């Protein structure tokens, strides 16, 4: 156990080093090609990501959909499936939530919100389930189908759906959802009374849902029979089949749940953040989710941390823009952080080798 703790600490230590190296390289760019200084830029990055309560909450707010898409990708990975389609599943889920949010009226809030979320998850689930069933029954590669479904989802929801549903003269959104369909912002809850939240805090109960989803995924994967079966299929489908596990069923199930998680990601963005389905929802949350999942080592806890890291980079990135760093450099720094975090693997191998040497003596 203490060994486990030690290796976790070592990993964390390296993570900090990785981020540090990325920031140093980014800093060189900032220092020499922008009018901001490194210190200004990174102070802004930190302040906007974690500097005060509002920043921390907004970081969490930005992390919310990323945690969900990250979980979606990670969950599929555990079953050996590469779900590049979180983007499309998120769009479909968000769209359905948006439509259900305004089209259904007269329901009590709890029921309406729950219904919207359920429908969104169902829709996302179907969108993930299609490549799932094609893989399970016909063996068709899921990567290609999820890519295709991303593109189809974009056309159906953002391009076509919005144009059909938007009110005349209005922007590219579906109509605003009913209040009963909203996910409550923290500013509208008792939390506000306790902490006296400043304006501009947008974190909403979607965050709670994301964390619950992570717990759910963790529990499902590591504590239940279904999880046992899913992981077995992911590692060795033939072995799982031998063990009486229905491989096809599990592949479909996993893609369905994965899609539902991404769909939930769309729903929280619509019901909590935007309050309508908007063309702005098509912002690469699904693709970033891939990086979140893999950086998080495909484990729910790791996904939460990686999601927060990305949320912080986005949130802090805005701060850097205010400090005079153009957005593209912020983007470059984000890429660098991912690179160096991903390269951590090398250090782990290095450490293992060193250990072997020590044992030999």
């Amino acid at each position, binding site marked *: 156990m203490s060994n486990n703790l030690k290796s976790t600490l070592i990993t964390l230590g390296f993570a900090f080093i990785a981020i540090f190296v990325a920031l140093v390289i980014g800093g060189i760019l900032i220092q020499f090609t922008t009018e901001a200084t490194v210190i200004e830029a990174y102070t802004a990055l930190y302040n906007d990501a974690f500097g005060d309560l509002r920043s921390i909450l907004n970081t969490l707010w930005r992390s919310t959909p990323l945690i969900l898409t990250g979980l979606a990708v990670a969950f599929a990975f555990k079953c050996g499936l590469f779900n590049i389609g979180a983007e499309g599943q998120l769009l479909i889920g968000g769209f359905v939530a948006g439509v259900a949010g305004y089209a259904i009226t007269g329901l009590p809030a709890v029921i309406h919100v729950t219904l919207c979320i359920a429908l969104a998850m169902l829709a996302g689930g179907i969108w993930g389930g299609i490549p799932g069933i094609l893989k399970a029954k016909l063996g068709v590669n899921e990567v290609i189908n999820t890519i295709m479904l991303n593109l189809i989802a974009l056309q159906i929801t953002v391009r076509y759906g919005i144009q059909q549903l938007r009110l005349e003269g209005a922007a590219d959104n579906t109509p605003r959802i009913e209040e009963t369909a909203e996910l409550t912002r923290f500013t509208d809850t008792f939390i506000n009374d306790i902490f006296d939240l400043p304006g501009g805090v947008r974190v909403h109960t979607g965050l709670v849902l994301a964390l619950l989803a992570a717990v759910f995924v963790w529990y499902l994967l590591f504590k239940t029979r279904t*999880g046992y079966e899913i992981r077995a299929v992911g590692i060795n489908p033939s*072995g799982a089949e*031998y063990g*009486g596990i229905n491989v096809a069923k599990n592949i479909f199930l996993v893609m369905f749940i994965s899609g539902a998680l991404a769909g939930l990601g769309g729903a929280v963005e619509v019901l909590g953040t935007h309050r309508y389905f908007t063309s702005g929802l098509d912002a690469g949350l699904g693709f970033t989710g891939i990086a979140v999942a893999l950086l998080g080592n495909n484990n729910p806890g790791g996904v939460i941390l990686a999601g927060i890291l990305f949320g912080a980079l986005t949130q802090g990135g805005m701060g850097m823009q205010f400090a005079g760093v153009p957005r593209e450099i912020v983007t470059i720094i984000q890429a660098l952080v991912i690179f160096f975090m991903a390269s951590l693997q090398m250090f782990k191998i290095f450490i293992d080798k060193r250990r*072997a040497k020590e044992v*030999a003596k």
Partner: protein
Amino acid sequence: MSSENKEALKEELILQMKGITKVFPGVKANDDVNLEVKKGEIHALVGENGAGKSTLMNILYGLYQPEEGEIFYNGKKVTLDGPMASINLGIGMVHQHFMLVEPLTVTENIMLGSEPTVAGLFTDKNSATKKVKSISDKYGLKVNPNETIEEIPVGMQQRVEIIKTLYRGADLLIFDEPTAVLTPQEIEELFEIFKTLKDQGKTIIFITHKLKEVKAISDRITVLRQGKTTGTVETESVSEEDIAKLMVGRNVLLKVDKKEAQPKNVVLKVENLTYKDSRGVNILKGVSFDIKEGEILGFAGVEGNGQSELVEILTGLKKATSGKVTLKGKDATKATPMQFKKWKVGHIPEDRHKRGLILDYNLAENMVMGYHDTRPFSQPFYMNFNAINAHADKLIPEYDVRTPGSHVKARALSGGNQQKVIIAREFSQQPDFLIASQPTRGVDIGAIEFIHRRIIEQRDEGKAVMVVSAELHEVMSLSDRIAVIYDGNIIDIVDAKTVDEFQLGAMMTGSTPKKEESDNE
């Protein structure tokens, strides 16, 4: 021995490995190991599973770098920092798990890395094929140069591996358990090849768990135990029992000892079973037999005659094309693997890596695979890992699985111990019907003894047992009745006590009058 002779002996040594130590995370795989091999001899390397044989050979082939130790080749000290260094010295290796690229052809695999070219640009397939032909003629290694590895039988794959080493001019050939996956005929052929190689002046290091083979073919034997060298002996001077004792450190029972069978009710009835594979080839052509409580029905046959498919149909992993399977009176023709488990059918699969284990699951998780949905392991909303771990902690000593604990991944165990994990799992569920397919493949003698004893125990407890093995010896000593399978048909079912090896061998190759009869169906 005169001092002059001693000098000559030194001259003769092609290889010396001195004080080799290799550590893997958690294991000292080789601990100050010494090995001396003479030019032109066949040198057997034996030891229990996990003794460090493969590791030592991988070091010799440059795949692993030892933490300590020196290697002398032809008297000169060498550094083997990669396979290329070894290849250039004239060392070749045939790995236990073949190093062949499945979608490539035989010739492509052989020339890989040392391809002849035309104009330095494109592959000169003709000259490669020619060279392959000439090697195959010289050493009697029959291969089909243009077929892909996927399409050819295991025996031929192995010959491809041998040609690969010779193609690169190997003088010292390492064989890591070459016979584990071969049929008796193929083993015969391999030994013929060994002799030809030896006649041509090649040196062979040969790892095996089958002491009969050691006796039959080797000149000298080096024994490893728990990562250390126990000693090197002349083959002529020792008996099989002696070797066994050197390996295991105790006396081992090499013969299977069993009482008379007491067959009772029919457990499994198979009627006219046929199976066509996805390419439409008839694999099983109408097989009928039954198995009773308290007996062992063995299946003898050259691999690839339908045994594997038969086993998979009887465990739900494949669906029969026609025919009927009745298990304990219930129709099981279309049953799923899970249903078979529920009906208490235990299955030791022929391929432990592909089917038998989830290599990245730990032992505890592996030990409930297939029963993971039963109490107490599975509860309505969670898996009871305490129960699962307790289950493993109970079985590990009971089945003598050598491991640091139940939390270790199955991947980290040696083959023999992996096999014991499977056996522990299947037996612990008290099956009414047990199918054991190649139950001792790649397993050391100590473990073989153990596994055989356990199988017979099952029979004596009144269970029905079906044993499928490529090893005739194993089938004969375990079975009460023996079904001989050839080309998708059961040629005959004979009494194990009355049949002899030659009769069986003949039937297995289809050369009995009965063959025509069944072919007419």
